[in-house]
């Protein structure tokens, strides 16, 4: 090749570098303007938990919205959250912080959705639960070795007691009884806590040595014991007699889970009518109905195993039914 060609090539490459660089920079700046305000929005002044209804995360805006009647319009205006739950006096809003390694802000909000406490934990937002009184809160994050080790995730679950202000950053060290014996292992992982009405008892999932168990825990005694195997993300019914959960029914990675309800008195379980695999912690919308996220929508199904699933909200997640002033 001669010099003229070499110069031509160099000019071509420099032009391309400038064009592609400008394109990249433009896109980054555009994305920066687009993301910044939406991610940190608080609730608008008129939006609070006073009105009963279904509260959920609206996928289009990333903010919490409310639907008062089951076929009524959605009213946006809540804070922007990746995961949300509310009950009694308080709401819990998990918000991923930008950047790497992943960190999550757990925002504790009062009934007017004003922030009263903020805890920053490592990981990606996953589960959020508030006890019926609003005094106990729990959240789970996925923690991951972000870049090089791709598929290994572990969970980290915190419990916050607002009566004492005491925060358990990771409940991994809770003494665990498994098959009647104390269990010690470094691979113990908890997720998906659900509190009972007495603000002491709770249910959760523990995973260890490749198996998952439903555990019943006691906050005051700080202990947990496994009740049965293969029940994940428990959700205690309003009357405290049943637990809705997801059960691994297949080793096929595409569709491993189904929704079940377990009767705590008889320890018998029955499947719900949802035929699809659900990877969410179910939420009781009333004593007979369970809501859950599936494929980016919120659906509901009868808790007794009959009927057919219903589409509640298109483009929503984190359903929580708030029933007016606290008891």
């Amino acid at each position: 090749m001669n010099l003229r060609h070499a110069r031509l090539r160099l000019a071509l490459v420099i032009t391309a570098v400038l064009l592609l660089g400008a394109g990249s920079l433009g896109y980054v700046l555009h994305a920066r303007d687009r993301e910044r305000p939406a991610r940190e929005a608080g609730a608008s002044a008129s939006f609070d938990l006073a009105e009963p209804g279904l509260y959920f995360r609206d996928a289009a805006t990333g903010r919490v919205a409310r639907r008062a009647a089951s076929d009524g319009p959605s009213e946006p205006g809540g804070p922007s959250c990746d995961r949300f739950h509310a009950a009694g006096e308080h709401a819990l809003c998990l918000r991923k912080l930008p950047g790497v390694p992943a960190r999550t802000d757990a925002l504790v909000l009062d009934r007017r959705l004003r922030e009263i406490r903020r805890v920053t934990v490592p990981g990606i937002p996953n589960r959020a639960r508030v006890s019926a009184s609003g005094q106990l809160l729990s959240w789970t994050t996925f923690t991951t070795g972000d870049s090089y080790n791709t598929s290994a995730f572990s969970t980290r679950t915190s419990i916050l007691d607002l009566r004492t202000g005491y925060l358990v950053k990771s409940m991994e060290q809770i003494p665990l009884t498994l098959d009647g014996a104390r269990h010690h292992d470094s691979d113990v992982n908890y997720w998906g806590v659900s509190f009972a009405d007495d603000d002491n008892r709770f249910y959760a999932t523990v995973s260890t040595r490749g198996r998952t168990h439903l555990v019943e825990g006691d906050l005051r005694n700080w202990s947990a014991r496994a009740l049965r195997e293969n029940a994940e993300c428990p959700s205690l019914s309003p009357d405290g007699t049943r637990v809705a959960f997801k059960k691994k029914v297949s080793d096929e990675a595409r569709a491993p889970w189904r929704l079940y309800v377990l009767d705590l008195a008889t320890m018998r379980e029955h499947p719900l009518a949802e035929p699809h695999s659900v990877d969410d912690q179910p939420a009781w919308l009333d004593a007979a109905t369970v809501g859950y996220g599936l494929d980016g929508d919120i659906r509901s199904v009868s808790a007794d195993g009959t009927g057919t699933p219903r589409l509640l909200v298109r483009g929503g997640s984190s359903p929580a039914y708030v029933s007016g002033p606290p008891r």
Partner: protein
Amino acid sequence: MYLAANGRPDAPPRTPGARRRVPAAVLALGAVSLVTDISSEMVTAVLPLYLVLGLGLSPLQFGFLDGMFNGATALVRLLGGRLADRGGRHKRVAGAGYLLSALSRLGLLLAGGATAGIAAALAADRLGKGIRTAPRDALISLSGPPETLGRSFGVHRAMDTTGALLGPLAAFAVLWATADAYDAVFAVSFCVGLLGVLLLAVYVQAAPAIPPTAAPTPAAASTAAPARPSRATALRDPAFRRILYAAALLGATTIGDAFLYLLLLRGLDLPPALFTLLPLGAAAGYLLLAVPAGRLADRYGRRPAFLLGHGALLCAYAVLLAPVSWPSVIAVLALLGVFYAGTDGVLMALAAPVLPAHGRAGGLALLQTGQALARLLGAAGFGAAWTFWGQRPALWAAALALAAALAAARRVLPRPAASPRTPTPEPS
């Protein structure tokens, strides 16, 4: 610019070893790989975060998607090699592979939240990666005199690894600047990938047209130059077959880096977060050692270099069998660096001169696929052994198997006498 000004890079010099410069085409291909690896590692680094947080896929589903395509890459490679050999279309096939991978970022960008779209984009990326690898290595091997191939591959792999190290940094810079706009990472990755394709188009020459009868080595000439080269030509050559067997045998006794890192973390009871840093250490070692290892292999023989590289891996097993302490972390990472420097590019440099120019891409593809499948088998076997016997017995078994494979490979690997153009006689 040096890249373009370096005359005719593909013409072997008349006096072997007199020229100390790396062929311009190799530098150009190295630059293409560097830029492309920045592009692809950007996506690799943020994909788990994006799928799980951005799209709400469960980690289990993500693992499934991730694993689904990994095996396919090895097989697509064979296709890329064959396509490239037909009429010497190395540059075009490699370019198509690079372009496909770059376009797959656009697919990720446009797929939005649709899992099927994401899966298709990932498949396109792996397809591109599989297709381009063998023609690219064949181009490197055809771009310089056979006696400096080790250095050429060393330079290329060092540049390639540099890109792989820069990619995650670039991705995290974008995420940080945009408050987690994953689409911005894909957009930037797309632009960088296009630049890689352009560099290839502008600075890399098509493979020099070598008539089948004028193949560079007697080994190749013995295959009688069929008009339609195929994989069978490479396999019919006894010297190539022996290299393939040795590489597969050694590959099957390799347990996979992840297990080594896991053993380190467990031995020292380190936080799992360090899992992300250990591969960086090994990659840095590879980066530093790739060029010197290639040069040494050119001077003292690629066969002993390849064997010594696996010897370094055996030493790493031995270090882990001893009580683990902080120095063992350094030692294992350094030994892994030596292992990759002594085996990755060196194997290509070892096999390339044996293969006829018109069947080179297919032959190299076969070799790479065979090695990759064998390593997959080795890692799976070690995982099973770990589960059934526990970690120490499994590691002992792996070490013994590797030692036995090394002894066997020493017998199987052809002596360099088969290649008269090697300038210096080899010890050993």
